[in-house]
């Protein structure tokens, strides 16, 4: 009855070039070959992007090494001013960055505009302020040198900010490799570095696929490796840096339990569940992908959840009313489909709201599996898509046991109106972030990172400095 007309954000604010080079030593330079980056919402080619070979990576590392001398010896207050400048330019160009992010990644503009880009600016502001206050943080003030950073496609610009801002604040220089499917905002960030007059070589952006990333990680003159991505690749990186003196931090996968007790504020819990698993199409390492609901409220909660899912709006990522955008790539879509099919084969019941998927592009409807047991693949493996597995529990102890029964340990959610139970649960959950009566909240002042196979080291907050200092 009340249908929202299309409300597309204007694409005109972004000027995408037909092709992009590598950003090395403050300049864009051609690579030897190139690849195409596409809009996952309609498979349109957005641009050609250079592939950095191992020689290119070497040039970038050399540039970063050279710049390290200048950058690390610069007074912290001056480094801070560069970072503040970058933060301001990000705010000035916020809409442009948000639109570009949604085009390249497929995430809804509402999220890139209201979550990603504001957090990116906030992250630079936060770490800018640390640059001349390191002496008070308790990790010393000696930078490590050249940081090789490899980031994922789910929050392309935000992950760049999480990596670059603390690295630069601590006096390191960086060689960053964005994800193969989402290089464009990193390249726009390179332009922002130019606008900010950042000394050449302090930030270098090398685009490409896994091989480029491997070259960054393995480069002998890299002092620090920071990676966000899958646990599978994290393991390979940990093996690669074994036996070297490189410092390593890893932010990897997760299979978070979102635990709802019978006394929870149900309407907010439903919102939290939705935000937990359908935010960014579920392409979130800390997604609340396992809903653990107390048996006594299972029916009521699931009814509410299904009703709520029926209001989710899937479609054009640039439409301001879109809640669920496109899956980032054909590969990822195939993986989500495969695991979902496996869920059905293993006996779980699948449900999605009536939801028309666009014909072109990569799409997957919001999906709930009920009747899931801990032994099912969909309760153990990270799907990294809009797929929720629902399990039940009877007692708080059982909830903790099930929540912790995973090799991962990145995040967890607890929903109850009883304060002492929250603290009891928070104590026992083996996860780096515990969201109580909320979910998927992020802030530059708040450390983020996992236990166990979700990786090590923290990003954000005071703790985030340790990763970039010679402690």
């Amino acid at each position, binding site marked *: 009855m009340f249908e929202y007309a299309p409300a597309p954000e204007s694409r005109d604010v972004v000027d995408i070039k037909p092709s992009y080079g590598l950003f090395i030593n403050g300049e864009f330079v051609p690579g030897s070959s190139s690849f195409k980056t596409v809009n996952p919402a309609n498979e349109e080619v957005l641009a050609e992007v250079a592939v950095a070979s191992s020689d290119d990576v070497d040039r970038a590392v050399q540039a970063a090494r050279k710049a390290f001398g200048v950058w690390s010896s610069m007074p912290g207050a001056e480094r801070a001013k560069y970072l503040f400048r970058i933060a301001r330019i990000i705010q000035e160009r916020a809409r442009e960055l948000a639109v570009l992010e949604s085009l390249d990644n497929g995430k809804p503009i509402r999220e890139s505009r209201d979550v990603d880009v504001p957090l990116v600016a*906030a992250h630079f502001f936060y770490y800018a302020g640390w640059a001349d206050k390191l002496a008070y943080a*308790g990790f010393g003030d000696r930078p490590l040198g050249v940081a090789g950073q490899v980031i994922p496609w789910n929050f392309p610009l935000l992950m760049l900010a999480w990596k670059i801002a603390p690295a630069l604040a601590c006096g390191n220089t960086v060689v960053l490799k964005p994800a193969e499917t989402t290089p464009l905002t990193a390249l726009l960030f390179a332009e922002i570095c130019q606008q900010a007059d950042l000394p050449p070589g302090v930030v270098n952006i090398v685009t490409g696929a896994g091989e480029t990333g491997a070259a960054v990680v393995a480069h002998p003159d890299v002092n620090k490796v920071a990676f966000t991505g899958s*646990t599978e690749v*994290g*393991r*390979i990186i*940990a*093996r690669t840096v*074994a*036996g070297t*003196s490189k410092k390593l931090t*890893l932010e*990897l996968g997760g299979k978070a339990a979102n635990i709802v007790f019978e006394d929870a504020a149900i309407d907010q819990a439903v919102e939290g569940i939705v935000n937990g698993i359908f935010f960014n199409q579920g392409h979130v390492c800390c997604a609340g992908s396992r809903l653990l609901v107390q048996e006594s409220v299972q029916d009521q909660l699931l009814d509410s959840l299904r009703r709520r899912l029926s209001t989710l709006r899937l479609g054009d990522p640039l439409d301001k009313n879109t809640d669920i955008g496109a899956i980032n790539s054909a590969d990822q879509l195939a993986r989500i489909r495969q695991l979902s099919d496996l869920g059905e084969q293993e006996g779980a019941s699948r449900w999605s709201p009536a939801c028309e998927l666009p014909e072109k592009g990569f799409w997957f409807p919001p999906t709930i599996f009920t009747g899931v047991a801990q032994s099912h693949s969909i309760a153990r493996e990270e799907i990294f898509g809009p797929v929720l597995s629902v399990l039940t529990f009877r007692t708080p102890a059982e909830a903790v046991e099930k929540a912790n029964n995973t*090799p991962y*340990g990145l995040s967890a959610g607890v929903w109850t109106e009883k304060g002492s139970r*929250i603290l009891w649960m*928070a*104590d026992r*959950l083996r*996860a*780096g*972030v*515990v*969201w*109580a*009566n*909320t979910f998927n*909240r992020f*802030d530059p*002042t*708040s*450390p*983020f*990172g*996992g*236990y*166990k*196979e979700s*990786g*090590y080291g*923290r990003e954000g*907050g*005071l*703790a985030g400095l*340790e990763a970039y200092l010679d*402690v």
Partner: protein
Amino acid sequence: MSRLSVRKTYKLFIGGAFPRSESGRSYVVTSPKGDFLANASRASRKDARDAVTAARKAFPGWSGATPYNRGQILYRIAEMLEGRRGQFAEELPLGKKAGLEQVDAAIDRLVWYAGWSDKIASVRGSANPVAGPYFNLSTPEPSGVVAVIAPSDPLLGLVSAVAPVIVTGNTAVVVASESSPLAAITLAEVLATSDLPGGVVNILTGHQAELAPWLAAHMDVNGLDLTGVADPDLALRCEQEAAENLKRVIRPSSPDWSADPGIGRMTAFMETKTVWHPAGV
């Protein structure tokens, strides 16, 4: 005629008990001059496995104990060690005077770490002023089960490696110095009489090259301290194995054990947990 002494059988320390190696094997421990000292147990991979099981079993209780309680117990270990100064001084292959100095340093190190139990969270935790209506607090927590390949420095090095692991609530499986393991087993006797719950520290004697890779590869071990690994190939192999379940690793080094240890050995095996909660009426 002088009295024939009753010798001690040096066994392993697993789950608070002193079993022999399940393999039935032992190896000869000699003094620096080459004199026979004892047949120490030569632990097998199965002993290592059992030790990890014991450490895992002890973890919930130990990590859940109050920091005050853990500090009291570490201090108790120091007290017990103080009472056996002489014995340790004799057992250490250093000579009486140097031996006593090392025992004293080890006791003082334990006292130092004991005091950290209820302070590390204040030093490494943080209240995070997030931009929203939320309470947000980060606290450090123990990583879990940590395998410690102990340095060859037989008492001070050992204590300096084990104390930071357990004071924060981790449990430990320790591979004692291969060449001087006896002090480690005598230390186990101290631990066993210090109210330390069984399984919090487990001590294996035997061949480092045989045991370390199994512990490094064990999927229920969360941290790996390679400080005592002198062979770079072995260290590399262990670190690579540790990657399989992303263990937190301290790489090999030869620290000056008499220097201020800093807090790095504690934080290496700690996780930061951040809890969010809305603030509203």
